[in-house]
């Protein structure tokens, strides 16, 4: 099958039980679901479970999908629910919105021993170098530390490159809520990267 096969065409072929169609679905989304699961759950084993849960749902429900153009959102919604279910089996943490006031930079932040570290500019850093850098570990820890309802929006928007509209559709949230959570999540990540690079271990 050519790379030009659209989600619509792929879904049609899955519905017709064409040989290889489900395999192509796995190849199209499997890696992304696994990567998403690792970012959301923080553990590869959990991500493996999320992938299998998502594919099981796809195996049983995909044919009934009414809007083929929504296949990506559907897949991420199923994967997101699987991640959140894993979370619920663990520590219970009530959702609350973090006020902007809590994230505004404060003057006393700069009054400590060390000046805040500068966020590095990775625009010209080669991919392989970025993959090996300490930044990758810092980012993984920072993302894991976010409350799940912020983490999920940040991972979908900034790391899985879904649009605001797609995230809103996937999570059943208004676009304004997606934007609000994304901004707060980015502010938290920015602060944590800064703290990590500055050698501090402070946390909110």
């Amino acid at each position, binding site marked *: 099958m050519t790379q030009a096969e659209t989600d619509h065409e792929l879904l049609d072929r*899955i519905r017709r*039980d*064409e040989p*290889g*169609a*489900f*395999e192509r679905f*796995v*190849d199209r989304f*499997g*890696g*992304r679901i*696994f*990567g*998403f699961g*690792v*970012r959301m759950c923080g553990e*590869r084993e959990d*991500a*493996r479970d999320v*992938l*299998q849960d998502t*594919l*099981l749902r796809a*195996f049983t429900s995909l044919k009934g999908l009414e809007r083929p153009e929504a296949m990506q959102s559907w897949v991420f919604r199923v994967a997101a629910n699987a991640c959140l279910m894993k979370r619920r089996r663990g520590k219970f943490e009530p959702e609350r919105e973090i006020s*902007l006031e809590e994230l*505004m*930079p*404060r*003057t006393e*932040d*700069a009054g400590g021993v060390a000046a*805040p570290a*500068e*966020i*590095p*500019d*990775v*625009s010209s*850093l080669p*991919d392989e170098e*970025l993959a090996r850098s300490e*930044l*990758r570990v810092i*980012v*993984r820890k920072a*993302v894991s530390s976010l409350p799940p309802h912020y983490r999920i929006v*940040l991972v979908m928007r*900034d*790391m899985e*490159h879904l649009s*605001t509209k797609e995230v809103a559709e996937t999570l059943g949230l208004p676009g304004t809520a997606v*934007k609000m959570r*994304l*901004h707060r999540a*980015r*502010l938290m*990540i*920015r602060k944590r*990267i800064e703290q990590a690079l500055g050698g501090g271990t402070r946390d909110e």
Partner: protein
Amino acid sequence: MSEARAGHGAHARCKALFERLSEYIDGELDASLCAEIGSHLDGCDPCKAFLESLRRTVLILERTPAARLPEDVRAEILRAAGCIPGGRSASPPGEVKK
């Protein structure tokens, strides 16, 4: 919005724009608000520095590579899903050995 800016919380304009910086970065603001923020940034070095740090943060997130699907997991799933026409098998992928 620099930490170095004393009494930053008192700067109402900075505070109001602070809330919209991600939308500014993402190009999701209407032209008039975008121009307003641009104009504020021209005259506010701390806000400009903070915006740059946030922009760099987003770039780091966007470029941080995802974990790759292990070949053995992919192979197990395809083996379970690829046994009958359409890729469907008697054993759904959820029954893949963990």
